[in-house]
């Protein structure tokens, strides 16, 4: 499974890419592979606020629906609308095709996430 360096990861297989006060959030390669062919993505609206670990989106394959949880609390500043018509983009490149962009409420929360090295180890050992 592909793990991109420089991103933060959660045990639920979300990734977070920090850019100044903002961050992009998406699903890891492991998550998209486990779900299979994604046919529907449900995203929040701009200005919606979420706490860390709160469910903010749902990604569905033909067989299953999975909730996606916030790696860090914050306010949604953009959603990836391309995914409404082309949800399969998440399968094709899960790191390029982010779900939402947020303004991070408390950057200290990022320290609680795994680095790419830690996530690779987590995949090897735990999954």
């Amino acid at each position: 499974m592909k793990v991109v360096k420089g991103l933060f990861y959660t045990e639920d297989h979300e990734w977070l890419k920090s850019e100044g006060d903002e961050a992009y959030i998406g699903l890891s390669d492991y998550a998209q592979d486990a779900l299979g062919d994604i046919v529907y993505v449900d995203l929040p609206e701009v200005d919606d606020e979420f706490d860390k670990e709160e469910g903010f989106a749902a990604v569905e394959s033909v067989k299953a629906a999975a909730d996606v949880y916030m790696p860090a609390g914050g306010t949604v500043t953009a959603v990836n609308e391309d995914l409404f018509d082309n949800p399969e983009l998440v399968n094709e490149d899960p790191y390029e095709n982010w779900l939402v962009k947020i303004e991070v409420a408390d950057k200290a929360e990022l320290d609680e996430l795994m680095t790419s090295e830690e996530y690779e180890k987590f995949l090897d050992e735990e999954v």
Partner: protein
Amino acid sequence: MTVKKTPLYDEHVKLGGKVVDYAGWYLPVQYEGLIPEHEAVRNAAGLFDVSHMGGIVVKGKDALAYLQYLLTNDIASIDDNQVIYTMMCYPDGGVVDDFLVYKYDNEEYLLVVNAANTDKDFKWMIDHKKDFNIIIENKSDQIAIIAIQGPESEGILQKLTDTDLSKMKPFHFDKDVVVSGVECMVSRTGYTGENGYELYLATEDAVEVWNALLEAGKDEGIKPTGLGCRDTLRFEAGMPLYGNEISKEITPLEGGLKFFVKLDKEEDYIGKEALNKQWDEGLKRKVAAFELKGRGIPRAGYKVQKDGAEIGHVTTGYMSPTLKKSLGVALIKTEETELGNEIDIVIRNKPVKAVIIKRRFL
């Protein structure tokens, strides 16, 4: 309970199948992917391992009389080498199981039952044997079943047998077919809405026939196909799944399967009285098909509302791989099942508009 392996387990692993525990059996949900496999069955052919299904034989002088007492359909209406779909009900009209009955002759039948229900069915049958002069045998572990389904299935199977398949009518079978040198019973049946065949054979011959079919169908585009698309295919074809559209709590009349319940069958059968009563009084709820108009995918178990009041639940729902629409079947109050009626499906706590349509999706 230990999870069982079908004789084709090693083949599934070799083919890259995502193997899961399904009804106590290790079976592949998918190999390459649910959607390409679904499309292979609609457009070419797919090969399913359905060896997990149970096989119960009823034989003896009273075999027909016993099955007439046990089952809702009219088993006397079929000829030798014919197959009939039926329900087996509880006295209150709830469903023990739904399955196909194969008639060898008046004194011997094979019931091919849902894997998860096999033990329950067998016990139910033994418990209701009464004084009928019959023997009931659970042969589930001795039979492998391979289903080849799709428009190319006849051509592919024909390459491996001298039996003229064009002469086999739907819902008929031939006990003595040699496929790739192996003795099989072949029926023209399936669970996908496409033309197809199911091969019953000894477990030790399963690998030979499985691989021969994959090889013979290469040019036509045959694919090994998993449980995932088996469910989307049957759903699109308007077929029920035990536990979803019918169950211990949902009668076949509520499940839209009245055709397979002979309310006026001459013989008395378990559930007859309750089902007649339910029909005469009028159904309070029944299954209806719907198309989602808003965004989202309806899933089994989601609540259904009308003007904010709960009227039932979704029994099966998918983003249809063939039609690319969000479709579902729901068990709802009868007065809300009229074509064109607008209902709401509650998806992640939000009501999403849907409209009642005909059950014929394809």
